[in-house]
């Protein structure tokens, strides 16, 4: 593992396209800013590990055990901030 010392305001560049910046220290918490291309997934390690583990468990479920389901609601769309939708502005 490469270990670097950084001060608040200093950055690390990875692969020429991902910038990790130490924003500030708050007690034992380090605030980190990350700039990366949209196609590069960035997650907290714990969330990533949990979902990755669940995905691996979910691979190849056997058929024949499918429970019966009825709709609990009408289909609904996810929330997307209006201002963030490309081409949405006049």
């Amino acid at each position, binding site marked *: 593992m490469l270990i670097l010392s950084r001060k608040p305001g200093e950055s690390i560049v990875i692969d020429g396209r991902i910038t990790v910046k130490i924003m500030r220290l708050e007690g034992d918490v380090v605030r980190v800013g990350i700039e990366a291309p*949209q*196609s590069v*997934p960035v*997650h907290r390690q714990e*969330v*990533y590990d*949990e*979902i*990755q*583990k*669940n*995905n*691996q*468990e*979910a*691979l*190849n*479920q*056997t*058929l024949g*055990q*499918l*429970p*019966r*389901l*009825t*709709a*609990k*609601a*009408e*289909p*609904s*769309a*996810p*929330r*997307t*901030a209006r201002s*963030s*939708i*490309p*081409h*949405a502005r006049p």
Partner: protein
Amino acid sequence: MNNLLTAPVERQAANGASLIQLPCGLLGFERVKNYILLTRPAEEPFLRLQMVEEPKRSFLVVPPHFVIADYRPDLSELDVAFLELEDPSEAIVLNIVTIRAGAQPTVNLKGPIVVNRRTLIGKQVIPINAAEYAIRHPLALS
């Protein structure tokens, strides 16, 4: 089948399958980017997300409105831009189902798969409000 899923399915209605691209892959399966979304009448409302290169490997998925009444994942600006969603109605949301021996099936509400029905490009996203949702939400049988 509900109307959230009809649009892509109609494109390849003959075999009930749609080609879906996940450029980032699924978490833990980052290298697998091409999937077929299979609908089989006997399995509705469940669908299969099958790897194109490895047809024996697939995930069971379900539209979330069959799981809970009020599911509103809040997509980040980056995910909206990545998915090129011009309107929320373009999004198809699918959640991965896990069936474990001797245990109640669960649904991952924390990391939904969102697919743009216009481009058929999708991503397993972690919504901004992911903390509100469980990764192993019990699937209530009806």
